[in-house]
C-alpha cells in the first residue's frame, strides 16, 4: 500500500518508525512546553512572552490513567456506520521530563486488560480506523503488535 496518508492534524507529530514523535512548542523565555502546540503566545501568566520553538516530546512515559470506548463516538469522529463498532482504549500518559499528561488512543489490539496505571508506554505512529489519517498511539513498551 503506497498511497499517501494525511495526518489527522498538521504539525502535531512527525517521523516514521523509531523516529516517530509528538511535536510541541517550548517558550524560549520561561521554558514552558505546550502540547497541542501553542504558536501564538506563551500561556504562562508570569512569562514576559518568548519565542515559541517546535520541540519533540519524550517518546516514553507512564500510564496516568486509561479507559475505553464501548459505544461509537459521535461525529466529528469518523466511523464507518456499515461496520460493527470496535472499541479502542484511550491512554493518558505522564511524560516525566515535560511534567505533563498527554492523552491518545492505544495501539491496535491493546485493551484495558493489557494496561495498568504506572506502566511504561511509548508513542508510535498509528492510523485512525475509518478515516485512514495518521495519528499517534500509545503502546506498552516491549509489545510488538
Amino acid at each position: 500500500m503506497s498511497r499517501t496518508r494525511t495526518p489527522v492534524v498538521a504539525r502535531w507529530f512527525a517521523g516514521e518508525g523509531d523516529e516517530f514523535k509528538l511535536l510541541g512548542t517550548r517558550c524560549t523565555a520561561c521554558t514552558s512546553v505546550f502540547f497541542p502546540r501553542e504558536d501564538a503566545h506563551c500561556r504562562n501568566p508570569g512569562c514576559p512572552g518568548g519565542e515559541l520553538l517546535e520541540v519533540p516530546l519524550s517518546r516514553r512515559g507512564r500510564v496516568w490513567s486509561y479507559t475505553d470506548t464501548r459505544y461509537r463516538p459521535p461525529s466529528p469522529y469518523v466511523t464507518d456506520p456499515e461496520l460493527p463498532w470496535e472499541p479502542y482504549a484511550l491512554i493518558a500518559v505522564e511524560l516525566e521530563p515535560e511534567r505533563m499528561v498527554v492523552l491518545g488512543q492505544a495501539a491496535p489490539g491493546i485493551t484495558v486488560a493489557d494496561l495498568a496505571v504506572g506502566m511504561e508506554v511509548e508513542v508510535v505512529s498509528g492510523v485512525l480506523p475509518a478515516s485512514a489519517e495518521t495519528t499517534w498511539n500509545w503502546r506498552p513498551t516491549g509489545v510488538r503488535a
Partner: protein
Amino acid sequence: MRQDVAVLGAGMHPWGKWGRGFVEYGVAAAHAALADAGLDWRDIGSIVGADTVRGGYPGYVAGATFARALGWQGARVASVYAACASGAQAVNTARAQILSGLSDVVLVVGADAAPKGFFRPAGGDRPEDPDWLRFRVLGATNPTYFGLYARRRMAVHGDTPEDFAQVKVKNSAVGALNPNARYRSRVTADEVAASAVVADPLRLLDICATSDGGAALVLSSMEFARRHGAPRPVRIRAVSTVTPRYPSTVLDLPDIATDSAVAVEPAAETFRTSIASAAYEEAGLGPGDLSLAEVYDLSTALELQWYEDLGLCGQGEGAKLLREGETALGGRIPVNVSGGLASFGEAVPAQAIAQVCELTWQLRGDAGERQVAGAQVGITANQGLFGHGSAVIAVR
C-alpha cells in the same frame, strides 16, 4: 465585607425527555419561581438567562428569549454562557447587579432540550476548537474522561466499582423522593453492575444521562426582601466563578493534554479544590459549617472526588466517607439529596440553577421526604468546560 442577596423564589420544570423546546421549560420554571416569590413578572427589573447552545440564536440570547416569551416588559437583560457553569454565572450576574444597585430584583433562568446520547460539538470543521479536536482526533466523549478519572481513583485511592455503584444507589434513593427528578426509582448495586460498560470502569448507571429541564430563581436585595415581607429569606452568601491557575496539571475536559509544570510549580490546590475554597473564603465559612452539598455527579466516581475537593474529608477518603453513610440523607453531611445528576440527568444551563433551587428548599425546610434536618448552610459545586468554576453557598 460580606453582602448577601435574598432568594425570594425557586422553580423548576421537571427533568425528562419531553420533546419540547427549551423556551417552554424555562418559561415554566420562571413562572414557578415568580409564583414562589409572590411576584408578578412585571415587578422584575432584570432577567439573566443561562445560554442554551443547542437552541441556535434564541439559545445564545437566552435572557431576551425568555423575556420575549414571558412578555416584553422593559426589564434589563443579560445572557451568559459558561458551559456547565452557565447557571452559576447567571446567578453571579444577577447578584452583581443587585449588590451594585443596578437592579432590586432579578429573574435567573436556565433551560435545555438536550439531544439523546453523547454530547457532541457544534457542526462544521473547527480545528481551533479544543472540544471539536478531542472528538475529531481521539473520539474522546465525556464518559471517556469520566472513565479516566474513575480508573485513576481506583489506582491511587483503592476505590472499587462497588464504591462507585453505591453513589448511584444513594442518589437514586433520594431522587425517588423528588417530583422534579427524571428517574424516580431506586437503583440497586446489582443493577449498576449489570448495566453495560460505557467507558471502563464506568457503566451506564454510573454516568448521568442527558435530559430536558429548566430551573429559575428570583433574587433580590435584602432591602427589597424586607419590603416585600420576606424578612428572613434564604440568602446567597458566596458565588465562586474562578478559573484554574497555570499550570493546570489534572487532565480535564476537553483538553488532550495538561499544562506542563516544567516552568512553574503547580499551586497546592487543584482547580476543583480552588472552586470550593474561593466560595468558602467569600462566605467566611468552611466545610465544617455545611449542612448539605449539591455536587456535579456527572459520574458516580466524580461525586467522590468532590467530597475531597469540598473538604468534606481528606484526599483519598471519599469512598470511606460514602461507605460510612455520612453523605446519605441522615448522615453528617448529606450530598445530592436532590438525587443529583444521577436522578436528573444533564440539562446544562439549568443544572447549576437547579442546585441552588434545592438548597433553597432545603434551607427553608420545604424539601419534604428528602429534607435534611435543621439545614442551615449549603454549598453547590460544579465545573464548566474550558475552565469555569462554579460554587454557590447559601445560608438560612
